[in-house]
């Protein structure tokens, strides 16, 4: 076995899409941001990557911890400040996050606030007019996904078995609910929001485009061209639409997959003002 650890999916895609040309020298090492061409403009690509030497031991495997969440907030806010008063660059969140970091010191030091700072930065950037696109290339789990990707105008995903979405990792969820991983998988087959695979997630209407036929672990030139074209189209679509997340409830998949989410809003609107 080589001493060099395998690059994570986030690292692979950041490198592939940016050539690490415009890598921004920031901290921490786990938040990688790079400015690179996307179509006729420059976009900021952001990934969270694992660091076995992370100063916080509970964030060494690609989790979003204190430094990662606050680092995300910083990189997004920097782009906002730099683009103030001019064309706002697209922000591309390359999502491969195992979860948030679970630890006592994380709680003491307020990981909830660091996470909120990342959410706040992404949501504020979107509201300011930055097209914000999430590209799911690996795990998009729980607090990791909330802080990195879930505020996007458009969520794109590779149609790959390595792409997983959920509120908790398989193993942790099995322990909390006292089920086996196999039982959870069976439940996911019956109940779409319980599933981990990206096609089930897309069936809920939360994915703008599911990108099939792409090598997710070793993207070649044709794969990159394909993904870039999808990103460029999503950026244009985001710029043409409203800056909120309402689009998630409008797709044909959402009409069935999130019927209750739609019905609740419609009934609330009817009753909002006293008759």
């Amino acid at each position, binding site marked *: 076995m080589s001493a060099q650890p395998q690059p994570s999916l986030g690292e692979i895609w950041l490198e592939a899409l940016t050539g690490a040309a415009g890598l921004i020298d920031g901290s921490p090492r786990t938040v990688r941001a790079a400015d690179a061409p996307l179509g006729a403009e420059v976009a900021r690509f952001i990934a969270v990557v694992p660091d076995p030497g992370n100063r916080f031991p509970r964030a060494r495997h690609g989790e979003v911890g204190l430094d990662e969440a606050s680092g995300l907030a910083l990189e997004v806010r920097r782009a906002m400040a730099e683009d103030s008063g001019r064309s706002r660059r697209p922000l591309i969140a390359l999502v491969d996050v195992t979860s948030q970091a679970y630890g006592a010191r994380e709680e003491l030091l307020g990981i909830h606030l660091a996470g909120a700072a990342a959410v706040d930065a992404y949501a504020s950037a979107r509201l300011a007019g930055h097209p914000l696109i999430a590209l799911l290339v690996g795990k998009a789990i729980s*607090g990791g996904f909330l802080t990195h990707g879930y505020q996007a105008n458009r969520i794109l995903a590779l149609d790959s078995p390595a792409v997983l979405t959920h509120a908790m990792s398989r193993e942790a969820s099995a322990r909390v609910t006292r089920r086996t991983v196999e039982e959870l998988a069976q439940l996911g087959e019956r109940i779409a929001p319980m599933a981990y695979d990206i096609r089930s997630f897309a069936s809920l209407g939360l994915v703008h485009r599911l990108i099939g036929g792409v090598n997710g672990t070793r993207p070649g030139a044709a794969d990159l061209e394909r993904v870039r074209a999808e990103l460029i189209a999503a950026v244009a679509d985001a710029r043409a639409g409203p800056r909120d997340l309402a689009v998630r409830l409008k797709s044909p998949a959402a009409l069935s997959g999130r019927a209750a989410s739609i019905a*609740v809003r419609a009934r609330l609107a009817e009753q909002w003002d006293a008759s």
Partner: protein
Amino acid sequence: MSAEAERERFLARHSFIELNARERARAVLDGGSFRELLGPFERLKSPWLPLQGIVAQADDGVVIARGQLDGHEAVVASIEGAYQGGSIGEVSGAKIAGALELALRDAARGRTVRPVLLLETGGVRLQEANLGLAAIAEIQAAIVALRRHVPVVAVVAGVVGCFGGMSLAAALCSQLIVTRQARLGMNGPEVIEQEAGLAELDAGDRARVWSLMGGEQRHATGFADVLVEDDAEAIAGAVRAAFGERTAARSERVGELIARLAAIDAEHPPEPAALRALWGKVRSP
């Protein structure tokens, strides 16, 4: 105040924590102004729980009420901690997000509706996993958008506390009110013990848990704006006062957050008491 008057006041206290979600919303709003939206008779229940053999409650554990605060139009979203641990499912999450989105629509039209969140939640309902998480992302998006027009005020009173993605939602709010009984954290103690081991955290050690994430500690280290007694009148008063505050939400102040974290030795983090001295109350109410 004389000792006698203090005693009278203590005896007159009306616990907020002991109230259910509906009573809490009523207690916060001006007397007689409470009007529930999507009440239990609407029967908007979770479509997912019955598929897993779990009885679904008719309001999915969230009460949305319109009413007034000091005569101003208001909306309260109150989570019932006694139902499924206050967890956020598709319907309960859509009720909260939808209410905030309507307040935002009104604000954009120049009509202010004061939003109040009474949070008592373990976070995502695991039986509705991805749809609970999606709803929380939408609640967070709505708070950030709405906060630009009107303060969004949150209360974590206690029994369940406020965890998971909803702890981030609490931190996004303009003003956060807590009691000593409240806990606020991204991960609940049980999950930390399970995932990181007993050496990391003994979830049964209540003193330790509260020292890390209890309301008093959160207030003393700048994570909450107001610490109040468990008293319905005091909480209702704090909510009203919070709408007079106009400061940047703490989640917007990234520079301060990063400077605070950078000064911490991750190998030897301070004990909770030492952290109070270090971080103090950065923004006193």
